[in-house]
């Protein structure tokens, strides 16, 4: 059975998408073939109108089949794929009768381009309607007419915004932007689409009025206006991509060169643009990351027969910024969060943190004031353990101190029911050590969130040898309910992310000791694609917090993780980072400058001029070396877990495909050689390539 179902009734053709065996509709070669044939049939039978719908719940067409796209070997193949799609959509656009797309859900990429090739578009009113062209986030551009038909429909400035930022919009917004013609509730959409077609045929459709401001008309219709708009758009793109992502620029270039021209010429340039992007390493990596994401969203860490327990209430022990962030996240899913700390200051901080996030969501219109008030009200602060007894899960987020955490866990065991799962949000201590004095260790696990909790998509779930499958399943299911990507790690100090990240940060501090200017170190890392420099990151995390974690890892892993003396010295000098407006940088009035006092604190015996490339290798290869050790020790079993964790947990550049992907692309053998050279050059055994790397 095919994915398409064409029915002509009362001279109205209805083409329904329903890909067998799949929850969503996607467009692979077979479906496109069917579509082409269906359009030919419609053209031949000449019904009065064509309505295109989907039979999937909440999905119109989710886009082109990315797996097929991944198989493309060269530019020519990519261009052919684009051209074939364009031709089918051209046929659709050329049909003489009214054509109506009924968008009942996700309508993305090639799916949206199909809708754009129809004369009219209707959409559902529900939240599942998601319309957009997210191609640039996969490193390509809309290649089935999107760069041509969207500007014609929605105007140049709106089209640029949607295509260059991959923004996904609701049906309501689409109506506002003139992209869809009318909204229907989902339940009435299919019938409504037919009625709409009849209205069109009866000539009862009111003419569309284009409401444009004078400024918009100037920007879109006059040559100087357009020039200004394109240069502004280019500037914005560069600001956001920092030049690492060629796709938005290419899309911009295509639109700029083709706007106002013939559509056939425009389509040619569009497919050439797509072809050029499709074979870039950036696009390849972004597609890999897309699949990584898909994989880890549902990765079966626990046997499917183990059912997670429901968590109707989550308690958070330890308020403050992390506790507040976790409580906010929990409440945002309409789950009550009981937050406990030992003083009001911490509780205030937690409420402030949560409230700040809700205020921001209000400002961004992600929710209304009623929803925000409701969710905020689910967070209840307390100085006692009251309310912990019937919590399904407790997440401990007190200060990173083994003694204190052990004590808190003992208290937790006394103040919770035997069914309550106890998870620690520790970043570096082991769960086994923290829970040493807990009698029932089967309900212990780690749940390591990253700061800021609401924004960082990763949670490291830590499984000890005692963690029961049920505990693990519950913690994983809960983290996913909170919208997080889960990576399960072994219970060793620093787990995965911090164990890999700390050597990188430490290396940056060592580079400062050796006389490399702070801003240059950060610039080198950012030129590699890191979202912020390592020194900036240390300031962001807080030097006290960072040094504490580093110290814990030094204790666990010995010499190769020896904490830079500079970190300690900076901490002792009271330069704690951004939160105190003074760390490696001095912060004031929205700008920051290097704190010159840092250089005098600790200086290496030998100072030397370190080239940027060497500095980068020391930092990045240091991470790769540690990642190798993690794989060797089976902290995680799968190198892909390293990739997803570093991207989602630290912002490691997605266009590089992940840390281990980058290592593979560079060649593990080359890295081993370079590491050995670094070991020799700097007389530093920490660079000695680990066995896992050397063996490959």
């Amino acid at each position: 059975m095919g994915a398409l179902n064409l029915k002509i009734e009362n001279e109205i053709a209805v083409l329904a998408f329903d890909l067998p065996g799949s929850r969503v509709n996607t467009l692979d070669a077979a479906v496109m073939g069917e579509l082409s044939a269906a359009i030919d049939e419609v053209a031949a039978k000449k019904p009065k109108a064509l309505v295109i719908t989907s039979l999937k719940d909440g999905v119109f067409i989710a886009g082109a089949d990315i797996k097929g796209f991944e198989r493309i070997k060269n530019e020519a193949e990519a261009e052919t794929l684009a051209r074939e799609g364009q031709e089918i959509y051209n046929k659709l656009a050329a049909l003489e009768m009214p054509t109506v797309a009924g968008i009942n859900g996700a309508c993305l990429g090639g799916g949206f381009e199909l809708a754009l090739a129809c004369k009219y578009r209707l959409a559902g009113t529900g939240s599942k309607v998601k319309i957009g062209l997210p191609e640039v986030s996969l490193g390509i551009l809309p290649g089935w007419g999107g760069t041509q038909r969207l500007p014609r429909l929605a105007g140049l400035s709106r089209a640029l915004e949607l295509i260059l930022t991959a923004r996904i919009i609701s049906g309501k917004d689409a109506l506002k932007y003139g992209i869809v013609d009318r909204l229907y509730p989902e339940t009435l959409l299919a019938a409504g689409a037919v009625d709409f077609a009849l209205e069109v045929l009866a000539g009862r459709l009111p003419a569309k009025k284009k409401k444009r401001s004078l400024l918009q008309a100037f920007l879109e219709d006059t040559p100087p206006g357009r020039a200004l708009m394109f240069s502004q758009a280019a500037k914005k793109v560069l600001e956001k991509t920092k030049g690492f992502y060629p796709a938005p620029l290419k899309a911009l270039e295509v639109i700029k060169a083709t706007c106002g021209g013939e559509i056939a010429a425009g389509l040619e340039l569009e497919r050439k643009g797509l072809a050029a992007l499709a074979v870039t390493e950036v696009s390849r990596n972004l597609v890999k990351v897309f699949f990584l994401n898909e994989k880890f969203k549902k990765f079966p860490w626990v046997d499917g027969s183990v059912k997670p327990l429901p968590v109707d209430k989550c308690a958070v022990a330890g308020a403050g910024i992390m506790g507040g962030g976790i409580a906010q996240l929990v409440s945002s899913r309409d789950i009550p969060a009981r937050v406990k700390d030992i003083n009001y200051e911490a509780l205030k901080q937690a409420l402030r943190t949560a409230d700040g996030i809700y205020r921001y969501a209000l400002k961004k219109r992600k929710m209304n004031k009623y929803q925000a008030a409701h969710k905020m009200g689910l967070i209840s602060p307390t100085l006692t353990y009251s309310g912990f007894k019937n919590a399904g899960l407790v997440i401990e987020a007190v200060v990173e101190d083994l003694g204190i955490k052990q004590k808190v866990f003992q208290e937790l065991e006394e103040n919770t029911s035997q069914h309550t799962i106890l998870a620690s949000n520790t970043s570096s201590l082991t769960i086994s050590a923290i829970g040493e004095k807990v009698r029932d260790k089967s309900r212990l696990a780690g749940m390591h969130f990253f700061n800021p909790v609401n924004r960082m998509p990763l949670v490291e779930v830590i499984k000890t040898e005692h963690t029961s499958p049920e505990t693990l399943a519950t913690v994983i299911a809960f983290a996913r309910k909170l919208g997080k990507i889960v990576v399960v790690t072994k219970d060793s100090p620093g787990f995965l992310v911090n164990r890999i990240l700390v050597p990188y940060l430490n290396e940056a501090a060592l580079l400062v000791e050796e006389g490399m200017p702070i801003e240059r170190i950060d610039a080198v890392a950012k030129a590699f694609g890191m979202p912020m420099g390592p020194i900036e990151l240390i300031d962001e995390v807080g030097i006290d917090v960072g040094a504490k974690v580093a110290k814990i890892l030094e204790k666990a892993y010995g010499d190769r993780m020896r904490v830079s003396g500079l970190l300690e010295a900076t901490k002792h000098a009271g330069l704690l980072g951004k939160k105190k407006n003074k760390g490696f940088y001095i912060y004031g009035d929205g700008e920051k400058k290097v704190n010159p006092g840092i250089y005098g604190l600790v200086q290496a015996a030998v100072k030397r001029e370190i080239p940027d490339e060497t500095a980068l290798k020391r930092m990045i290869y240091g991470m790769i070396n540690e990642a190798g050790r993690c794989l060797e020790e089976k902290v995680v079993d799968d190198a892909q877990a390293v990739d997803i964790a570093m991207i989602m947990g630290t912002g490691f550049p997605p266009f590089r495909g992940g840390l281990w992907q980058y290592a593979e692309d560079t060649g593990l053998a080359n890295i081993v050689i370079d590491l050995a050279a670094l070991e020799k050059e700097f007389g530093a055994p920490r660079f000695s390539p680990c066995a896992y790397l050397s063996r490959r």
Partner: protein
Amino acid sequence: MERIAIVDGIRTPFAKAWTVFEDIPAQKLGALCVRELLERTGLAPGLVDEVIFGCVAQPMEASNIARVISLNSGIPERKRAYTVSRNCASGLESVTSAWEKIITGMDEIVIAGGTESMSNIPFFFGKEITKTLTRLGKAKTAWEKLRLIAAVRPAQLKPVLGLVEGLTDPVCGLNMGSTAEVLAKELGITRQEQDDFALRSHQRAVAARAKLKEEIVPVITGRKFDAVLEDDNGPRENLTPEALAKMKPYFDRAAGTVTVGNSCQVTDGACCMLVMKEEKAKAMGYEPLGYIRSYAYEGLDPSRMGLGPAYAIPAALKKAGLALKDIGVTEINEAFAAQVLASVRMLASKKFAEENLGLSAAVGELDPDKLNVNGSGISVGHPVGATGSRLILTVLKEMKRRGLQYGLASLCVGGGQGGAVVLER
């Protein structure tokens, strides 16, 4: 009959209106209380059948405020909620309504309470200007609009104060304070008596701070969550008789004795409690705070509404089969010092009992040392919709501390009613 238990209760601190709670709407105060009650009792929200709340000035944006409170405190959507008003006894009515619902088998587990944010009672446009504005919205031509606007008189722009309207009796037309003046004058209650009573109320509330903490959930407040209110902020530490004496009569400037100082405060606050059958509570492993033995509401002359307790208390005692002397501790709302003093006097009056209650003897003496032992409306404050619940909670906690068997909570009610509940442990 099976006994109905009050398992536990909690309240916010009571805050003088337009102070720390002025930006917190009544529904939020209520939800905060219910959430905390659920936490402290460890009750699964899904087990609550119904939430019943009293509120006198329901916010426009939260009609059926009980439902808003129920949902915002995390109680599932499938559960029921309704709001009651018996004016100043609304917080008492919610608890006795719970009793009725449970006794009749309609509900098994109820959270009953009261909430009021007197800071948030709005100012209104007057009737005339409201009409003009409505018509303006419907006017089609500019000329018509102009004519409507031209007809507006400056006096029409004066706002109507919701709080003042709410505290004015809609039948006899007297302000609540004026009804207290009526009692003071009729019974010859002196300014000195009233001021002494007010001073004692403050002294008792100040002395009881530590005790009252047991029933209070501290609230973190402020736009930036930079303050925390742990206690009622109404009681004054250093109130002097001189300061009270200096105040001018507020309701009758010429010959009155009722001042702001010997009247209750205008207050924001909420209180709620968990109510279920004794048997149910015990089966769930709770040790109830106490039980409702009986209750009664009585009607009386609206212009003498302060005497409500003098009518309701004997009625409730009769149902309980008890005498006033059996009661270990009593709370009366203290709308006005004159109101409590008048009620106490009438309870002790044979004449009153004969003429109004059809009794041959006085109801009894209410020992001042057993009355409002922790202060009340004058010092702690009187968020009208919440007070009824607060009285029950405070009485039960005091009974527990003192090991008493019986207690009494009673209020005078604007519009001419009285309410009383006999509690037992």
